[in-house]
């Protein structure tokens, strides 16, 4: 069972998923559609970095994936606070 090929195929599927969601980020009629697309692409980037770590044989990339999950959440909440309160503080 060639797990390397399976991981590579899963990486390509994740990139395909990112491109589909990108369409919604460009198109989305309301700004909340775009913020939702940013959140989803952030989660998929977490997945992609973890997969790249296993493809290249370095599980140290999981630290980066954990950081992305945190940054994704903080950026989403910050954008929503901006949109609701119209100020940054």
């Amino acid at each position, binding site marked *: 069972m060639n797990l390397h090929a399976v991981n590579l195929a899963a990486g390509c*599927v994740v990139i395909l998923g990112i491109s589909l969601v990108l369409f919604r980020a460009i198109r989305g009629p309301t700004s909340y559609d775009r913020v*939702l697309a940013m959140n*989803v692409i952030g989660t998929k980037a977490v997945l992609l970095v973890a997969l790249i770590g296993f493809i290249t044989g370095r599980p140290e990339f999981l630290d980066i994936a954990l950081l992305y999950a945190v940054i994704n959440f903080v950026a989403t909440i910050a954008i929503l606070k901006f949109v609701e309160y119209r100020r940054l503080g």
Partner: protein
Amino acid sequence: MTHWIDWTSTALLLLGSFVLLSGAVGLIRFPDFYSRLHAAGKNDSLALILFMIGLLLQSFRYGTVGLSAGIRLVLIVAFILVTSPVATHALSRAAWIDRVQPWRREGTND
């Protein structure tokens, strides 16, 4: 012993890819923001959990480095499980306060 671990990991990755792609297709095709929020939030988190369990099964072949990788995978899953519902709720609340209207089928008044 390693044979069924490989097959289970492949099956989990395959299932996770299917859930991921169906969520992305739903994000394109659904008619309004709230239904897209359903598709994106649920499918995304589930796909991540399935992928991470599949990778956790694969990390056993790395020895002690795989053990720390497995712990980090579990940490990622725990963090996403906690914060993804919070982000989804914040999104839907912000959209509701901003008076984004849900989609209604033409001709009904429910």
